[in-house]
């Protein structure tokens, strides 16, 4: 059976792509989606990212130069050690050619190390931290969807310019939280704002009462939430219960996904400003793709991580087709050279830089009032499009060793 299939595949490949098929090891392209399938980030990434990757493969025709493409997935439970051992197993024993999604900085960095060592491609979508394109950069590693630098440039800029001059941070106590706080402080200070202090909470956390009280007593105008997913949702809900928002302080969610807004409800989330790499209801193209995704995800709408995973996977497939090999470095070179354009409408003006950063337009959005929403998941007013070069860290500031200076 297997033998027959292999011969069939080989014959088909030979017909379609001439000599090229010999370059694809084991006559199969396997893409692993490694994500949080059960924990804090399972809503904003999770199963939706697996579905997005499958859609990318289907939209590409299921084959690259006649070689079939397969998606596998696993749950890294947001832990570096689990992510690292799954990645190792996939590359060593299961012929996986690339790993996509990778929410949670710790997990992404762990996989980045393994991928770099093995010369395989990683397509980071969910993780946010800038080290991925600085000192942890790799010739075969890509950071696709957003990063803390762009988030801070979007949200913090807007908040400070609206008069939020004094800040206090509620920070998730791991690399991502520290990184997001540092990036936001940079923007706040550059705009003449003041940072009054910060408190770190464990990750993941459910009871924010003591941290919120410290933030309240700091007297800062803005409480910056340098966390994500369920942590942000819990912090915002509990801040409302404590009367912090009613008391004149405002919360700035520094990383808010549309799935978080959905969980909070417009009543609680209205008026909040946020930076996103994707909004499903932005134009006809994004709406069309998102509705296809939505049909497979019980009517939910995609977060930027989902759309980013789709965009990254389909671009990887294009890179494979152009390189005519699954050798990591060669595919990565093709991916850098090819224009980025796909059906999700994700990467507007997208380009990949030497440090692995996929630079594209970001959006500063404001959450609608309940009365403004025209339907389910109609949550954002896009206030401003931030051009990619303004949103992301300039290449000249990157500490990545691959950037020629």
């Amino acid at each position, binding site marked *: 059976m297997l033998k027959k299939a292999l011969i069939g595949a080989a014959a088909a490949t030979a017909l379609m792509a001439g000599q090229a098929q010999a370059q694809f090891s084991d006559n199969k392209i396997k893409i692993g989606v490694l994500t949080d*399938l*059960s924990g804090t980030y399972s809503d904003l990434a999770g199963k939706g990212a697996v579905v997005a990757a499958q859609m990318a493969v289907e939209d590409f025709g299921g084959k690259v130069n006649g070689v079939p493409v397969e998606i596998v*997935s*696993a*749950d890294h*439970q947001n*832990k*570096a*050690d*689990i992510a*690292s*051992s*799954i990645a*190792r*197993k996939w590359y*060593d*024993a299961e012929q996986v050619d690339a790993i996509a999604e990778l929410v949670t*900085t*710790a997990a992404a*960095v*762990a996989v980045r*190390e393994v991928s770099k060592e093995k010369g395989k491609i990683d397509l980071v979508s969910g993780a946010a931290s800038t080290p991925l394109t600085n000192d942890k950069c790799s010739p075969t590693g890509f950071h696709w969807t957003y990063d803390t630098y762009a988030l801070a440039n979007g949200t913090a800029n807007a908040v400070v310019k609206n008069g939020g001059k004094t800040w206090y941070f509620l920070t998730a*106590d*791991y*690399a991502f939280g520290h990184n997001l706080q540092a990036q936001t402080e940079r923007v706040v200070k550059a705009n003449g704002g003041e940072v009054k202090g910060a408190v770190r909470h464990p*990750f993941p956390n459910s009871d924010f009462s003591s941290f919120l009280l410290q933030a309240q007593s700091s007297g800062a105008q803005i409480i910056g939430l340098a966390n994500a997913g369920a942590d942000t949702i819990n912090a915002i809900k509990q801040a409302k219960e404590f009367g912090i928002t009613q008391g004149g302080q405002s919360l700035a969610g520094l990383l808010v996904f549309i799935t978080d807004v959905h969980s909070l409800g417009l009543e609680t989330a209205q008026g909040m400003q946020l930076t996103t790499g994707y909004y499903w209801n932005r134009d006809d193209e994004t709406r069309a793709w998102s509705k296809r995704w939505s049909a497979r995800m019980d009517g939910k709408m995609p977060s930027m991580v989902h759309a980013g995973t789709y965009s990254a996977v389909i671009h990887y497939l294009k890179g494979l087709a152009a390189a005519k090999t699954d050798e990591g470095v060669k595919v990565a070179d093709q991916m850098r050279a090819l224009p980025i354009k796909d059906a999700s409408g994700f990467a507007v003006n997208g380009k990949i830089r030497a440090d692995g950063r996929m630079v594209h337009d970001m959006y500063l959005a404001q959450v609608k009032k309940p009365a403004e929403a025209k339907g389910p998941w109609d949550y954002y007013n896009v206030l401003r499009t931030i051009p990619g070069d303004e949103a992301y860290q300039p290449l000249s500031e990157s500490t990545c060793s691959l950037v020629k200076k």
Partner: protein
Amino acid sequence: MTSHQMTSAARPAPSRQAIFIGILLVLALAAPFATYPVFLMKGLCFALFAAAFNLLLGYVGLLSFGHAMFFGWSAYITAHAAKEWGLTPEIAVLLGALCAAALGAVVGWLAIRRQGIYFAMITLALAQLMYFVALQAPFTHGEDGIQGVPRGRLFGLIDLSDTLNMYYFVLGVFVLALFFLHRVINSPFGQVLKAIRDNEPRAISLGYQVERYKLIAFVISAGLAGLAGSVKSLVFQLASLADVHWHASGEVVLMTLLGGVGTIFGPTAGAYLVVTIQNFFASAGSWVTIIQGSIFVVCVLAFRAGIVGVFVPFLKKRGIDA
């Protein structure tokens, strides 16, 4: 706790024992050609960890619920030494194990003053303390852990980044450590430990300084647990919070009990069983713990002496000490 197979002093006929060990060794040497080597190495690391733990539980009767602190901290120290200081793997591993033994001396000195549940609670409390130190100390990098640890060259010669070389290095460490444990258990020192386990007041009345024996056993156990952690950090090139977390302390208890407490090969069998479950059911995510728990319940109900423990009388009759 007192079952006949542990206290039996009868020496097995060396020939059959030698054949048995020989078969196991050949299997271990051939295994990486049939199975994924990293999986085998993970199993060996946990097997050594469980064997170290077994020395305390099986032969001194002390249930430590904080062994993860030795396992995890030695991993951090080895990883830091190999990555930041550029030490060769054998020195980094030794340093990790020595630090774990030193930590064991301090923790043991405090903990062995109590028995039973109090002993377990003291070790758990100290392990939690060390966990939070690991969470906050800058050199451990918190949730990220120390990543990208170089495996380096053993004695400056053998390249351990080659998976097979690494496997045989881990296997060598494991075999030596198990042999060492075997010698400790069957030495006069080991006999005193068993006497303390079976009846502490009697051992005292015979003139043994029980606390000193317990402390030495604790330090050996901590050092070997540390050795396992050190090697693991080189295998996965990563030292993370998962290894210092109390889950790891719980897991090693599970492994030892599943495999058969107070047997030489029991912890190894238990470790491989648990690692296989984790590997096999990895896609089930958080269900893994529930599956593990159910298997544990079944084992406790069906064969209390553990997997290897069940076969011990059978093997013993044929002159094999398992």
